[in-house]
Structures are given as structure tokens and as C-alpha cells.
């Protein structure tokens, strides 16, 4: 039982570190990847808590769809950003 709690705490720490990375990094693509990693860790955590359906949804939407939407938005707004530099 203690081992499992230790794994949960470790994964929570990893999620916090990845979320901090998403704020700290200068490059926007790296931030998007870090946000995806937060979702992947959350999905693994759901999986360890014996909820595979929630994990599947979290992985598909959090890490797949939202990453794609962020990338699309970044692609659309790139020109404006380069003009400002």
C-alpha cells in the first residue's frame, strides 16, 4: 500500500514539474508539449487508480486533440508575432 502511495506522490510531483516547465520555457512549441505531458501523466494516474475509460478520454482529448488545436492556433498566429519582433 505504501509503495502505491509513493508512486502516486511521484506522479503528482512530475505533473507539477511539467506544468512549471510549460510556464517557464520561452519557446511556445515546448510549452505545448509540456501541457501534453501533464495530460499524459494525469492519464497514467487515472489508469493506476483502475479507471481505464477516464484514462482513455483524458489521453485522447487532453494530449491529442488539445495539442493539435494549440498547434493550429500557433500556426495561424505566427505571422502577427513575427511582425511585432
Amino acid at each position, binding site marked *: 500500500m505504501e509503495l502505491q502511495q509513493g*508512486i502516486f506522490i511521484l506522479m503528482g510531483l*512530475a505533473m507539477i*514539474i*511539467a506544468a512549471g*516547465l510549460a510556464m517557464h520555457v520561452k*519557446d511556445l*512549441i*515546448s510549452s505545448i*508539449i*509540456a501541457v*501534453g*505531458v501533464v495530460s*499524459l501523466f494525469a*492519464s*497514467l494516474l487515472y*489508469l*493506476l487508480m*483502475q479507471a*481505464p*475509460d477516464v*484514462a*482513455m478520454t483524458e*489521453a*485522447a482529448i487532453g*494530449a*491529442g486533440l488539445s*495539442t*493539435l488545436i494549440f*498547434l*493550429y492556433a*500557433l*500556426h495561424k498566429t505566427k505571422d502577427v508575432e513575427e511582425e511585432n519582433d
Partner: protein
Amino acid sequence: MTNLPEILLQISTYFVSAGIILATLRLIKGPSMADRVVALDTFTVISISLITLIACISGRVIFLDVGMVYAILSFIGVVAVARHLEGGL
């Protein structure tokens, strides 16, 4: 002697978890975003093995579906990022 398979599976779970930790360290450290994408790819592929190991230990088939979702997701994510780096999407 009868529970030798369980012990071996547990040892492999430790190895796979260590691999996930190393990939996460590279993700935090990586100098450029391409290094981070490589780390993300490695992370996802190793997680598929971890998910299948969890499925074997807990004995539920539905975990394999989650593994398949991860496999599709890793491919689509990396190809989308590569496409974005080349200027398309």
C-alpha cells in the same frame, strides 16, 4: 517457485518505470524543442509497455484499448509537430 512469473513481471515494471523517469528528465533538460519531442515520443512508447504490464498484473482486457489509443496518439502527435516545424499543418 510458483510465483516466479509474478516476480519477473514486477522487476520489469521497475525497469519500465525507470525508463519513464529518464525520458521525463530528458524532457525537462532538452535544449531545443525537437529534443523535447523525441523525449515525448520515447515517453509515450514506454508508457504503452507500462500499460500492458498493468493490464497483465490486474487482469483486465480494457487496458489494452488504452494502449492502442496511446499508440495512435503518439504517432499523430509527433507527425503533427514535425509538420508544424516544416511550416505546414
